């Protein structure tokens, strides 16, 4: 990071950090809020000024922080002449707009929000102009579209604002999408996403066969953003935004982003016929068309909007010419347009604010009522018309000069004639702005009696008007920045001398014609206006709305096919797709020859298999009888655990058998509150369809399983087997993998399990507080109730079993490191032992005898496991490295103590806590449903219950 690089990064960050402040500071008052917005802008501007001398000398300031180097994405900024010009404009005008908006916004508008959006936009725009990485640039590019959406729709109560915001987002966002494609192509050709690298690879890019697609895609982005024909229509609709936004985004900065991009990419993309014909023609058409429409707009802001479209076309055309002099003219006109157009927008805002209308036909004669505004507006409008001694004249002369010797398809006069026509129309609408608003007789029917606004409101446009005059009279003061920016655009070292008098050139003649005819046109305006209104012309908004409506209908149709609200349909589609994909993969590459033999099948296993298949078929066929299906499901689970035991997986067998028990208990509990049977409601056709899908899925999975079962693979497990005892201190490799080699995984999984427990608990509470709770209270479950809820035999047996089960659990836990067992299984075994007590004596009775909360247990488990992992840091080793030692206490045999056991304790506690919390939650529902609490561990007198039940009947 070179000299000044750090400052550059701070400049890029400041607006975003600053955006956090105004929303809070609004509580301290509107002025404080505005000041808090101005401070980050001012700071950034000050830093920019610190960097400016070096940039003007021709240095390029760079800063880079790696972000995702694998993608070629880095946070890289650079500041050259062009970047400096734009950054200065963004920050400078931003400051003026902040001041102006303070007085423009009314007390009812949420000002904090406005300033937050404004700073967000400022940061995004600043990011575009100083990005040195095109991926980063794209991110900022999209951010400007988003923040502009927020700003255009700022007045949420106005439908025009919302529609305009949507349209702007759709058009500029769509263009941005195209640009992403173009930029990726560009980066691919250049082999780097760094702008400086791409700028050096111009020859390779122009020679590439992908040049044209990349050019078109990037230009789509630039044209939509800069409102070039035929994408110009969003800009006038974006004028529904508050005027400060129009002045800032839609004349000075955001709409120039497209122009900026074309200027930035100028050394790479320009210089070809395609560039000239696409860019210059689009610019020319936009310039003339925009100016023509502007002349007939009665809304002040619409007039200025189309004028902006026209001037953006002018800039585009200049860049399209592809000559160095044209680039200089473009850069200079960017500055001039900024000054006069922002001032004009603010003037329009002032008129609107004071007279309560901006309809030109209802205005006129404001000269004496608003003298200050009149002077500012007139100066700016004369500059827009291109009258000598104002800065607009200078760059317009340079444009006409360039146009005068440009040939278009071998024609010498098309471009000059049309350029003159554009200038002529521009003169006409500029004069109209002055004459029809300020001159003429004073009227007595203004919606509100107009007068000049407070100083704070006209200070900003006045400053810009002063600049208009100063640059117009002494253009050499802009020499430095124009030459720096133009050099950056062209890549050549340019040193233009800006001056007023060039002698009697063709451009002077063209200018003269434009001014005279433009004034003449204004005289004819009333006649022409009537003709214009009578003439049919396509309405862009109607076309756009029709397109959007069509797209919505199409999307609706497509969605309805697959997404009709039936989950079973989605699942069917999903499964069928998976089957098809699997089929394609299977039938693609040939399978290698099987390398493994088959293991023999002893008769017992064959019988077990048969049992499992029969049970599965039974569940499928009888699934409507829910209780029955559930019971048989247990058979399947148990058969599988037997299979695990036979196939050398004792740990799995243990886990499966205990999980099976808990799962069935859980489902039984839930079933109590659900219908006991499902109705037959699927049609035969549907069942056949589902059956076919299911059969295909089953066959596919079976084939896949068989295919890999008869082939050998390379496995990494040899490492685990070899290091289990040496490194992990245990002989049960599976357990060592769980608590040591892959301890991190296990740690995550117990957390997931704990969360599942909490989710169930939370769901239960949410349910009981809602309509479900009321439904439960009103449902009579006594029909289902056993007459002998807590039988004596069961209570006695479970009491006896309890200590045995706990000892078994402990034993399984302790031996887990060396023999089958471990925290998972032990946790499940103990929870089953506890569950038996719940079943025997009832929920509430057991609950009262519980000493520790299950929530605490889950938390404790996770914390213990975590601390064990952290403990290895103390020994200077990575997270969850286990260590162990052997202890010899005289009366008993030598045994092992390992930190892994502590970790396993955490696993144990979490599993126990989670399982118990889940069942506890379901049981809570029982007590809510009116289950009575028995004070004693068993029901002494079953007859009492029976009588009561019969009495109910």
């Amino acid at each position, binding site marked *: 990071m070179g000299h000044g690089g750090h400052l550059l990064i701070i400049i890029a960050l400041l607006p975003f950090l600053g955006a956090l402040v105004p929303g809070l500071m609004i509580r301290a008052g509107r002025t404080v809020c505005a000041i808090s917005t101005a401070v980050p802008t001012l700071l950034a501007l000050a830093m920019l000024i610190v960097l400016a001398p070096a940039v003007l000398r021709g240095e390029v300031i760079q800063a880079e922080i790696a972000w995702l180097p694998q993608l070629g994405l880095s946070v890289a900024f650079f500041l050259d002449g062009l970047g400096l010009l734009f950054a200065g404009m963004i920050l400078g005008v931003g400051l003026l707009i902040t001041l102006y908006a303070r007085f423009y916004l009314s007390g009812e508008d949420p000002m904090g929000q406005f300033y937050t959006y404004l700073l967000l936009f400022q940061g995004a725009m600043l990011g575009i102009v100083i990005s040195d990485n095109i991926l980063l640039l794209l991110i900022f590019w999209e951010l400007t579209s988003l923040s502009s959406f927020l700003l255009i729709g700022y007045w949420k109560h106005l439908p025009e604002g919302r529609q305009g915001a949507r349209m702007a987002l759709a058009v500029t966002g769509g263009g941005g999408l195209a640009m992403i494609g173009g930029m990726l192509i560009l980066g691919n050709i250049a082999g780097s996403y760094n702008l400086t690298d791409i700028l050096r690879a111009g020859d390779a890019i122009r020679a590439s066969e992908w040049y044209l697609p990349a050019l078109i895609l990037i230009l789509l982005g630039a044209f939509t953003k800069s409102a070039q024909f035929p994408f110009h229509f969003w800009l006038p609709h974006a004028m529904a935004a508050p005027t400060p936004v129009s002045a800032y985004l839609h004349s000075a900065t955001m709409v120039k982003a497209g122009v900026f991009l074309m200027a930035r990419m100028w050394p790479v993309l320009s210089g070809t016929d395609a560039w000239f014909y696409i860019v210059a023609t689009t610019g020319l058409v936009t310039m003339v068309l925009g100016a023509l429409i502007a002349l007939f707009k009665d809304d002040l802001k619409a007039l200025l909007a189309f004028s902006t479209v026209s001037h953006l076309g002018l800039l585009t055309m200049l860049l399209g010419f592809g000559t160095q002099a044209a680039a200089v003219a473009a850069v200079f006109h960017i500055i001039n347009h900024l000054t006069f157009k922002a001032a004009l927008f603010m003037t329009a805002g002032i008129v609107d604010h004071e007279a309560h209308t901006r309809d030109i036909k209802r205005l006129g004669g404001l000269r004496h009522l608003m003298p200050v505004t009149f002077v500012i507006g007139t100066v700016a409008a004369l500059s827009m018309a291109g009258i000598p001694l104002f800065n607009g004249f200078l760059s317009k002369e340079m444009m006409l000069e360039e146009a005068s010797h440009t040939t278009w398809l071998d024609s010498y006069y098309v471009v000059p004639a049309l350029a003159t026509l554009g200038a002529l129309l521009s003169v006409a609408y500029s004069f109209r702005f002055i004459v029809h608003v300020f001159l003429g007789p004073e009227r007595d029917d203004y919606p509100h009696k107009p007068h000049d606004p407070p100083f704070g409101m006209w200070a900003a446009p006045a400053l810009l008007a002063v600049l208009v005059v100063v640059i117009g009279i002494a253009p050499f003061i802009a020499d430095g920045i124009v030459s720096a920016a133009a050099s950056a655009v062209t890549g050549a070292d340019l040193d233009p001398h800006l001056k007023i008098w060039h002698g009697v050139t063709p451009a002077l003649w063209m200018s003269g014609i434009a001014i005279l005819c433009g004034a003449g046109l204004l005289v004819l305006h009333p006649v022409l206006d009537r003709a214009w209104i009578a003439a049919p012309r396509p309405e862009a908004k109607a076309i756009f709305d029709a397109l959007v409506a069509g797209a919505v209908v199409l999307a609706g149709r497509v969605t309805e096919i697959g997404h009709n*609200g*039936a*989950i*079973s349909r989605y*699942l*069917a589609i999903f*499964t069928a797709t998976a089957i098809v994909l699997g089929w394609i993969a299977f039938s693609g590459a040939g399978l290698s020859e099987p390398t493994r033999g*088959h*293991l023999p*099948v002893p008769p017992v296993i064959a019988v077990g*298999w048969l049992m499992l*298949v029969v049970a*599965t*078929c039974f569940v*499928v066929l009888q*699934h409507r009888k829910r209780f029955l*299906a559930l019971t048989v499901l247990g058979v399947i689970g148990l058969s*599988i655990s037997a*299979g695990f035991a036979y*196939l*050398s*997986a004792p740990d799995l067998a243990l886990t499966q058998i205990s999980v099976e028990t808990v799962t069935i208990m*859980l*489902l039984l509990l*839930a079933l109590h*509150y*659900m*219908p006991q049977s499902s109705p037959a409601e*699927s049609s035969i056709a549907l069942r056949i369809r*589902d*059956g076919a*899908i*299911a059969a295909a899925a*089953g066959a596919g*999975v*079976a084939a896949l*399983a068989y295919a890999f*079962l008869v082939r050998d693979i390379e496995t990494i*497990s040899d490492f685990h*087997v070899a290091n289990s005892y040496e490194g992990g201190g245990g*002989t*049960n490799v*599976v357990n060592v*993998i*769980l608590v040591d080699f892959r301890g991190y*995984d296990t740690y995550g*999984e117990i957390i*997931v*399990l704990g969360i*599942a427990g909490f*989710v*169930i608990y939370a*769901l239960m509470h949410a*349910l009981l507080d*809602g309509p*479900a709770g009321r*439904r439960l209270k009103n449902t009579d479950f006594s029909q289902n109730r056993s007459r002998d809820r807590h039988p004596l035999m069961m209570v006695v047996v479970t009491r006896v079993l309890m200590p045995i089960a706990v000892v078994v659990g402990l034993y399984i836990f302790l031996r887990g490191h060396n*023999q089958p067992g471990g925290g*998972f299984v032990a946790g499940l075994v103990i929870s089953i032992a506890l569950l038996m007590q719940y079943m025997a004596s009832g929920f509430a009775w057991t609950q009262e005898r519980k000493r520790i909360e299950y929530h605490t247990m889950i938390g404790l488990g996770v914390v213990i496991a975590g601390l064990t992992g952290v403990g290895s840091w103390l020994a200077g080793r990575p997270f969850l490295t286990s260590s162990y030692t052997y202890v010899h206490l005289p009366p008993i045999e030598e045994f092992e103590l390992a930190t892994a056991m502590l970790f396993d304790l955490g696993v144990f506690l979490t599993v126990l806590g989670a399982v118990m919390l889940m069942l506890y939650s*379901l049981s809570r529902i029982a007590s809510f449903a009116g289950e009575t609490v028995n004070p004693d561990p068993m029901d002494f007198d079953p007859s009492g219950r029976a009588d009561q039940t019969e009495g109910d009947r």
Partner: protein
Amino acid sequence: MELIVASTVGVLTAAGVYLMLRLRTFAVILGLAMLSYAVNVFLFASGRLAIDQSPILSRYGDATYTDPLPQALVLTAIVISFGMTAVLVMIGLGAYLEAGSDRIDIDPASEDADAKDARS
């Protein structure tokens, strides 16, 4: 033996998918439980089958062991699928108690009625 395991996985998958496509929550829960069995066995089988080769290191010299890694992964998978089933059961139960019906699809008739209510 390979055929036995593969066909078990296939049968369980088919049953699971069929039940998953039914219209009531309870059947779907049963189906997903069956699918979990199938997936667990499938993953376990990816370590290839072996008999009497438990991955418990022998004290008495060299022995061959089956692949322990899939076993470790399946062990946690069994516990996690229990957690998943439990959450599903709770959601299903909640939906039934809340709506009074345990259909998983949006009923077009009741949708229309709701829309009419909203309009009136």
